[in-house]
């Protein structure tokens, strides 16, 4: 039955680093077509959730399912197969310094070695065109601005035609135009059938691109719901997050 599920799930996942609890019995349900944002204060463990979902980190307890397959006991090569349906845009872009933009975008296709070089080049140009950066194909990441790096990272994520795309703080450090660009790109991706899971502090972007929200507080999931439910929530952590007051000064919020 589970093999036919179209979702990514976390069930009672716990994770700790050096004795510090990052997640404690955390649940998450990312269904195909339902875009979600994970919210929480800085250092709460939001990026850790993305890395656990991708199998880059192993949970101490609990299980993670990708389209019905439990990834806990999978080897690296089996994980690679499962991960093919997922792509991630890391916070800083994580572009490979030693490669050009074109090589970065076509990286997975070159690795797979299934397509001829001309076909890969066509796909690379198409994906770079999607983010409006065809002219940067021969540049190195060091020659790009922060916003351009994130757009190239999105193009790289798209090259493998994934079903799910994870975004780790996609708008952090960008000017308003950069933020608008990223938001616009995410909405276009969703229209093309991609499901997005985002981790961010940028509430405006979160509400613009997601239907459901998970709120992480002190290693636990304290809220799950829509924007409206979130705005109506009486939980003090949520109220403080949506409208910070003097009470949150130096309390580690944001």
């Amino acid at each position, binding site marked *: 039955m589970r093999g036919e599920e179209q979702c990514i799930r976390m069930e009672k996942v716990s994770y700790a680093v050096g004795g510090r609890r990052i997640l404690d019995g955390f649940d998450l349900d990312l269904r195909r077509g339902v875009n979600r944002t994970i919210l929480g204060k800085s250092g709460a463990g939001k990026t850790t959730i993305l890395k656990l979902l*991708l199998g880059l980190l192993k949970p101490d307890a609990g299980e993670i399912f990708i389209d019905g397959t439990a990834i806990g006991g999978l080897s690296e*090569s089996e994980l690679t197969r499962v991960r093919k349906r997922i792509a991630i845009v*890391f916070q800083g872009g994580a572009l490979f310094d030693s490669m050009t933009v074109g090589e970065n975008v076509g*990286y997975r296709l070159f*690795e797979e070695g299934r397509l001829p070089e001309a076909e890969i080049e066509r796909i690379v140009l198409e994906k770079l065109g999607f983010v409006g950066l065809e002219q940067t194909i021969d540049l190195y990441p060091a020659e790009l601005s922060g916003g351009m790096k994130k757009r190239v990272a999105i193009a790289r994520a798209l090259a493998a035609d994934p079903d799910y795309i994870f975004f780790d703080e996609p708008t952090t450090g960008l000017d308003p135009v950069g933020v608008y660009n990223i938001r616009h790109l995410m909405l276009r991706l969703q229209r093309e059938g991609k499901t997005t899971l985002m981790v961010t502090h940028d509430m405006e972007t979160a509400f613009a691109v997601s239907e459901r929200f998970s709120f992480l507080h002190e290693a636990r999931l304290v809220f799950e719901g829509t924007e409206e439910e979130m705005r109506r929530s009486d939980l003090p952590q949520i109220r403080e997050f949506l409208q910070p007051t003097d009470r949150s000064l130096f309390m580690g919020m944001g």
Partner: protein
Amino acid sequence: MPFIFVENTVKSFLLEFQAFFALCGKTVVRLFQRPAYYREFTTQLDKMGVGSLFIICLTGLFTGMVMALQALIQLKPFAATSYVGGMVAVTMVKELGPVLSSLMVAGRVGSAITAELGTMVVTEQVDAMRVEGTDIVKRLVATRLKALLIAMPMLAVVTDAVSLLGGFVIAVGYDINLLMYWKSLSQFMVFQDLIEGVVKPFVFGFIIAMIGCYAGLNTSGGAEGVGAAAKRAVVLSSVMVLVCDFFMTKMFIVFR
């Protein structure tokens, strides 16, 4: 309380030891697997081998000159200065050539490997590679190991050759001609010495590459972490080169 501290220290040491040898095992297996990442391999070979040539030549030249000077001072009272070539050769080919070139490479290449991989880890490039379906041991570690396994013996041979040249430059000042210098080489050396002079740097290359890669891939904590990892890799690989040199010399003496 002190007992728990000792227990934890021993445990973490053994775990690290285990992780290091696991990485070594995985890497050796992947040396023979496809894809071989020729572009990455040749880039590394160029960086590690060709890039180290200048420093290696300087090391060999001055060590050879110093060895010749010291040997000539000792040999002169016995009117045996004609043996200087052999003395320089036997010391350089068996010991100083492999060890000094390896120490230089540990400083130059070992730190570069760790810093490069460490930076890739802290900027999430390694995670990105894994998500893109790359076997990072095959792509990042095996290529570097392969490059250094080839480059290190060659660099040691260059060090030996340049040191012999340096020794000859000094010997000329003591009225020793090329023929005398050349003939004394075969009087002091046997074929096994040449084998020793190539096997040792091969093993040292393995140590430097693996410690560098292990430290790099286990970097944490941003720029400071990268610096700390590079320092650890250089110190550890330098010490391990010296320790292994002793045991390998002992083995070669046993099988002599």
